[in-house]
């Protein structure tokens, strides 16, 4: 077992770090303050191939592994949680299901421009009545001739309105399971922005990741071609769960980056800030707090990297992804909260990045499966 990164991964980290410091960090505060979707940064990332890191080269991607992708989200999130989740939602929630379940035609039509960065992607599963209970879907898709007709709405959709391509989960009928119980038949679809009947509701006003565009998607007799069914009819729930397994690695990397960023800023701060004639870093309380923060961050990083490698080498990586997300999200919340505490009154002001990072961290315990859902996934694997 070797815990050192390869030279390739080290160099990739340097690339993501340099890009984040130079292109993302200077905008982070304004992006948060003004709820500005950082289109200019996204365009730069598109040109550099950041929007298709784990997608094979034959489909316009960079052909790298999931670890490289996770490190990209991690480094971006160290300076801006908003930018991290834009890449994560696009890559894990839109590119990945099309790459995994799409037909060759769908891959050529949608995955290639997504991976090349010519188009931005999003994913719609959550509904007003279907959050953790993803089976409670109400959005319906009915086959009418050569077209599926979608009706319903999706909420809290990351990259909403900004994205060009959406993977949408909807109910396509009712079927009986082996025990004769009636269950919804759920399927997945690819929907393009601009399709008649597909509109956007209000933009959410959020506590954190405020530059990320979070919208309601509304489908009113929205007709899409029959061939835009993604995967087999009735396999939508499986597709959604598979997609979230990968997405959790992205969000775990985002949480990890937020924790690392808050820790870095706190280390800098306690070296400078003086009280009672000594720097904060000279107080043992500070030293112990930092030691705990750094240890937890490193533990989270190991779980996140393990999950990323499991996605590369294992058929199923649900438990690894759930553990990584559970741990990284809770570490992010704890470390950013401690970072604010160590900054004292200054940490509570918007002048200091840790205030934003603490607000950004909270969502990582909620989206793409709450921490409670991660515990359900992990414990189910223990008790099966």
């Amino acid at each position: 077992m070797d815990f050192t990164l390869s030279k390739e991964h080290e160099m990739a980290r340097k690339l993501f770090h340099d890009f984040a410091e130079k292109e993302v960090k200077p905008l982070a505060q304004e992006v948060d303050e003004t709820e500005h979707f950082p289109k200019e940064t996204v365009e730069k990332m598109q040109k550099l191939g950041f929007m298709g890191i784990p997608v094979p080269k034959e489909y316009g991607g960079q052909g790298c592994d999931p670890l490289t992708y996770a490190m990209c989200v991690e480094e971006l999130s160290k300076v801006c949680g908003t930018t991290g989740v834009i890449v994560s939602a696009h890559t894990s929630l839109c590119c990945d299901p099309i790459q995994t379940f799409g037909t060759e035609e769908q891959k050529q039509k949608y995955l290639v421009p997504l991976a090349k960065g010519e188009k931005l992607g999003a994913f719609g599963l959550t509904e007003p009545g279907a959050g953790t209970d993803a089976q409670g879907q109400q959005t319906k898709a009915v086959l009418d001739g050569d077209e599926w007709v979608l009706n319903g709405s999706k909420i809290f959709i990351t990259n909403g309105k900004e994205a060009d391509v959406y993977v949408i989960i909807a109910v396509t009928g009712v079927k009986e399971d082996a025990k004769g119980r009636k269950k919804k038949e759920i399927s997945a679809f690819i929907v393009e922005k601009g399709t008649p009947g597909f509109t956007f509701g209000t933009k959410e006003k959020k506590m954190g990741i405020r530059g990320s565009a979070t919208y309601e998607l509304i489908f009113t007799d929205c007709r899409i071609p029959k061939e835009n069914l993604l995967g087999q009819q009735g396999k939508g729930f499986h597709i959604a769960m598979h997609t979230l397994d990968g997405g959790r690695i992205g969000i775990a990397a985002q949480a990890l980056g937020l924790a690392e960023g808050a820790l870095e800023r706190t280390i800098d701060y306690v070296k400078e800030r003086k009280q009672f004639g000594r720097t904060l870093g000279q107080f043992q309380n500070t030293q112990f707090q930092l030691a705990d923060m750094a240890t937890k961050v490193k533990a989270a990083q190991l779980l996140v990297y393990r999950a990323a490698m499991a996605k590369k080498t294992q058929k199923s990586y649900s438990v690894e992804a759930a553990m990584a997300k559970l741990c990284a999200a809770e570490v992010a919340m704890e470390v950013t909260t401690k970072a604010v505490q160590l900054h004292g009154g200054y940490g509570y002001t918007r002048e200091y990045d840790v205030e934003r990072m603490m607000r950004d961290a909270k969502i990582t315990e909620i989206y793409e499966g709450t921490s409670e859902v991660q515990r359900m996934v992990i414990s189910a694997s223990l008790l099966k």
Partner: protein
Amino acid sequence: MKIVVCIKQVPDTKGGVKFNPDGTLDRSAMLAIMNPDDKAGLEAALRLKDQYGAEVTVVTMGLPKAEEVLREAMAMGADRGVLVTDRVLGGADTWATSQTLAGALRNLEYDLIITGRQAIDGDTAQVGPQLSEHLGLPVISYAQKIREINLEEKYIVVERLYDDRYHVLKAKLPCLLTALAELNEPRYMTPGGIFDAYAKDITVWGRNDLKDVLDSNLGLKGSPTQIAKASDKVRKGSGEKVVLDPAGSADYIVSKLSEKHVI
């Protein structure tokens, strides 16, 4: 078109310079980066490649660790990397370095050679021009912009920075340019480019691969200059910017000079 770019791995001086007790640079305490002027030279070559199509070869001389800058250059888009490394080449000053590079470049085909103006660890700006001399090529130093390159008639037109102005020079190809960091904004690597760069082989040359070079011109023994002592430069203050009308400005300057007892 074939372009050779000479690059150097240097300590990153941004975070300050660290010295060993004997006065030499403590390279292990500083991060290693591609010299900024060289990176601009590489970017210029890659832009010519984008525009006209070219094979870009990067060459560096240094310790085996210098391979890292070749990989970085390849991840940015260079086609091939050559590492010139050998114990007998160590301790080289600018003369021995340019002799070594000339010996390596005699093995390569080129229409254009680009070097950085100077390295941030030595700041001599001598290696590029010396290299052109050894190879018998015209040199345009301090290139701030490549205006035109004509491959059929084999010439290049370049702006050369000169104190308060620039000169427009036309040179026959092949020629050598020394590039300024101001020449352009170097591109980033791409994630896929990094993995491709590591999948390629690097050509490694030692003393015996150098062509038409005398041993007496190589390494520490072949170096006419030696460093007696190195120290960090005293940085100038950032100064003070004052915006006033001309008469007010004059009064302010006089008051400042008087305050410091200059007048």
